[in-house]
């Protein structure tokens, strides 16, 4: 196993990876930008070794490949855990780590290219027998978009090739609207990304977001560790995740697990990954994209499987065999606590935390780096903690989460705790009968 590992991330992500490293007897070294270096968890004799990055903005710190690789080398780390976000899905970064003698804890750059790229990953998944949302295999012109839409069925979604954050995206409900929407989306993506290339994809109006956890070693073992339901979203941001999904039957699950295994094996995938899928009104699952990294919501899977996914990542990166017999048990729910102001349209609200209280007890897990008195820097993500509960069944899990939220107190900054209590109380959620529109239906 590695002696020292650079945790190339910050905050809650870094704290999570550090915990597993220490349990495994690995010395963690944590990257910290100038504002982050002041965090309480990085002070004192118990704190992990810190690799300080000059600067504050992400692109000068956690996204600066030269600085991150130099830090790994200067702190004598054999391997680097990218966490999630920042450089975690950057194939170039993974390739540069390899050529500079730092093991990247994640899939190979080639696999990242095969599965991280939208077009290539659709092809790979299709070849493995994973159903792929009907749509174009690449950038299309207007005529081609029309033909594909006719075949896939209206409505369709136009998406910018270089897009993100909803820019250059248009829903088209019927044929007559296509030409105008196409022109608008082209112009918008041209203006925003300097690239007007568009895809077309079937639009699922009332869909559920369901994802499958993948974990593989470098000896040809691929495990698909069940699914997570992530349909409680606010503007494409996940808020609550659970496993198993109330909407996936055993038969569908077995079918998907087998197909995803085949596709990942064919692509030479190893380490952690997540296959994101969309479930349509008729219960069919469609491949959306694959994330070549660990996800924020991975603890949900850990709670039902009893595994430590970070440990498996480290072992797979160290060439160990990952042999698993997994039987998921019970039900797990995660709530993301964000420093956001519900009064001001959930605008991120950095600031100082005066008082902090988290729940505890059996089947209750808290992921955070925060300590009372800490300041939340304005440069980064607004998520400050995750609460995860595990119980024998879904109803018990919801009850446990409600109790856990009641025990939680964050003073000094507004948070999403109240929002979570409202969702948990909602009848549709309690019945397990909801899709990605739930929050807008609740008027949030």
């Amino acid at each position, binding site marked *: 196993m590695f002696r020292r590992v650079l945790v190339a991330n910050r905050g809650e992500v870094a704290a999570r990876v550090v915990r597993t490293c220490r349990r495994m007897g690995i010395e963690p070294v944590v990257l910290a930008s100038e504002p982050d270096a002041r965090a309480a968890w990085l002070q004192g004799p118990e704190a992990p070794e810190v690799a300080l990055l000059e600067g504050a903005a992400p692109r000068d710190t956690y996204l600066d490949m030269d600085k991150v690789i130099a830090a790994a080398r200067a702190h004598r780390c054999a391997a680097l855990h990218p966490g999630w976000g920042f450089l975690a899905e950057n*194939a170039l970064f993974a*390739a540069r780590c*390899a*050529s*500079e*003698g730092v093991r990247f804890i994640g899939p190979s*750059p*080639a696999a990242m290219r095969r599965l991280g790229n939208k077009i290539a990953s659709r092809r790979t998944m299709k070849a493995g027998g994973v159903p792929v949302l009907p749509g174009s295999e690449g950038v299309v012109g207007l005529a081609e978009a029309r033909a594909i839409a006719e075949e896939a069925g209206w409505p369709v979604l136009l998406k910018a090739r270089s897009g993100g954050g909803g820019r250059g995206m248009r829903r088209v409900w019927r044929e007559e609207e296509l030409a105008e929407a196409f022109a608008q989306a082209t112009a918008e993506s041209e203006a925003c990304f*300097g690239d007007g290339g568009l895809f077309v994809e079937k639009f699922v109006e009332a869909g559920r977001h369901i994802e499958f956890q993948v974990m593989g070693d470098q000896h040809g073992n691929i495990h698909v560790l069940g699914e997570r339901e992530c349909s409680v979203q606010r503007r494409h941001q996940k808020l609550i995740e659970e496993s198993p999904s109330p909407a996936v039957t055993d038969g569908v699950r077995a079918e998907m697990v087998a197909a995803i295994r085949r596709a990942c094996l064919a692509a030479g995938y190893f380490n952690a990954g997540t296959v994101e899928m969309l479930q349509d009104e008729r219960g069919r699952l469609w491949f959306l994209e694959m994330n070549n990294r660990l996800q924020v919501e991975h603890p949900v899977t850990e709670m039902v499987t009893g595994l430590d996914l970070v440990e498996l990542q480290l072992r797979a990166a160290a060439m160990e065999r990952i042999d698993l017999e997994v039987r998921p048990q019970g039900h797990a729910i995660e709530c993301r606590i964000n420093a956001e102001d519900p009064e001001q349209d959930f605008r991120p609200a950095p600031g100082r935390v005066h008082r902090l209280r988290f729940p505890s007890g059996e089947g209750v897990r808290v992921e955070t780096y925060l300590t009372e008195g800490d300041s939340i820097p304005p440069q980064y993500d607004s998520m400050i903690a995750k609460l995860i509960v595990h119980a024998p069944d879904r109803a018990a899990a919801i009850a446990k989460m409600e109790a856990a939220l009641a025990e939680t107190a964050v003073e000094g900054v507004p948070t999403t705790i109240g929002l979570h209590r409202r969702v948990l109380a909602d009848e549709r959620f309690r019945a397990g009968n909801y899709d990605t529109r739930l929050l807008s239906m609740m008027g949030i």
Partner: protein
Amino acid sequence: MAHVPLRPIGRPLVDVGLSPENAQQIAQKDAALEAKLGEVRAGWGADAAARVHEKGKLTTWERIALLCDPGAPFLPLNSLVNWGRSFRGSKRLAPGAGVVTGIGTVAGRNAVIIANDNTVASGSWWPLSPEKIERAQQLALRLRAPVIYLVDCSGLFLPEQALSFPGRTGAGHIFRMNSLLAASGVPQIAGVFGDCIAGGGYMPIISDRVYMTESAYMVIAGAALIKGAKSLKLTSLDIGGPEVHVHQSGCADERVPDDPTAIAMIRREVERLPTSAAPFYRGGTEPAPPRFDPEELSSIVPADHRMAYDMREVIARLVDDSLFHEVMADRGQEMITGIARIGGLYVGVIANNVLPTDHPDEPGRMRAGGILYREGIAKISAFSRACNEDGTPILWLQDIAGFDIGVEAEAQGLLGYGSSLIYTNSTNTVPMVTVLLRKASGAGYYAMAGMPYEPVVQLSTPLTRLAVMEGRTLAIAAFNTKLDDDFEIASPDPAERAKIRAAMEETAARIESDMDPVAAAARMDTDEVVPLAGLRGYLVGLTETIWQTPRHSRNPRIWSVHDLEVLTRNTGRAAAAAGVKAARVVEQADLAEGEVAVCVSTDGTFWRRASPRDPVLVEEGADVAESTTIGLVEVMKTFTPLKAGRAGRVVRFLVGDGAAVQAGTAVAVVG
């Protein structure tokens, strides 16, 4: 240094791309090239192919397609040999000299494939066919790559035998190469598919394995020359078919029913060879495409050979992940040297920097790029030697107008510096690949490992201009006695002036047509003409072939390149010198409030228009942006755009069109 710190280079096309017209011009040239290659590939056309099929045989290209792994590219070499050349005794031309050679991937190994084109005069050997075959054999010998012969050859094309039989590289030299390959332990496998008369018969025999199909025969002389053959109804197949050579003479190993079976047997034989060592030499990394698409090269390299561009943007579009470790970046800046990976394998890159660079000794003065000056020559000499010692293959990217000339150059001893470089490249044993991106002029072409210095392969592009010098310069040299100090015609007599002018123009035009890369390829002065966008594919195939066989190479810990780098590491003084950049916009005392002078940074000639017939780039009084080109500075036929440097209005030009300028000369006032 064990881990080579490769750094991202290159910028997106939106920031560095040329006008769409440039890409269109290059696309036209590519299309013209593609049409010619298509013609060569068609051989003598559908009728000839039909005759081959009637005999139950496959055409040469069909055989190659079956032989190579599905999806793997076959990289043809010397396709355009004999292009446009006619021969006595034949009404038809000899496309590709009647033979196809190149690199193909067979059962995961890169092999040199040599296949007679049975649709061109039944695979006869024409003038230059032997040389083309020998060139491919030479490549195999240098890289120790297995050779596969697909033999279907009716012997020499006899009417022109004087051009292909007796000489040093005449047909017999092919068999010497067969022998040298065998003596060096390079595997050779032959399939005999049809007529193999005389030379065609000798070519396969030295191979380690020889397969014969039922329609194949090998004879020293065919039935036509055997006395009494007619009355005995003896055919060549009777005299030298598999019946004889497999079962009696032992000149072939195995008899197979048909072409596809022979190909399958050859593939099985290749499978028994050692697997490629390339994955080992990749050292845990994987091949990766450049981050910037090689297709973009047609928007990076100006079609007009006089216009400058950023060579680093070219490198960014050729190497893996667009990562480059530049070595000695602050020395001899007119040259770029560094290490990159292509197909996951290390390559030393030596390229001309076509942009103007700082003069090493005179702060503030700049010099034109694309020229070999003293420091640049010393730098690439040392780098080339270091790569040779390290076993790192060298990729030369030429866009070179030549050596610096003049009083200073001679006094510095550029002849000596150049000779050091020539000695280095002549004695290098490491495989070198040379790409003539655009200009390949004079001794610069030689010094940067041009064809006479035996790179394993030399590639040209449709933009390549290969000649001792540009046509106009050559005309000046040829008519020197008739010209004055400014290279103007000296004679006052109008009639004589017109005569000399016409003669000079004719000379210039002839050189211009000689410089056509297709003409060079037809003479075998370059191995293949490849579209800019196709270069990456060739380089990947060549690099993989170079590293396929275990070879002399050092790991980066013990690289000479590393020592070189440490010794030339930027000292404080060099850093300070590099910091003194010529101020492009200088405040001057006689300017009105808010006005600045735009100065040139190199010695050269200032032009306000792109060509004599074009309108001026910017009128006096016109509004300009910071990046507006207000004029061009010409040095040795290379034009560098002069930008306004700040937004404003052009108040006046201070010098006229065609004025000689020195570094620092103010040419315009912007207010």
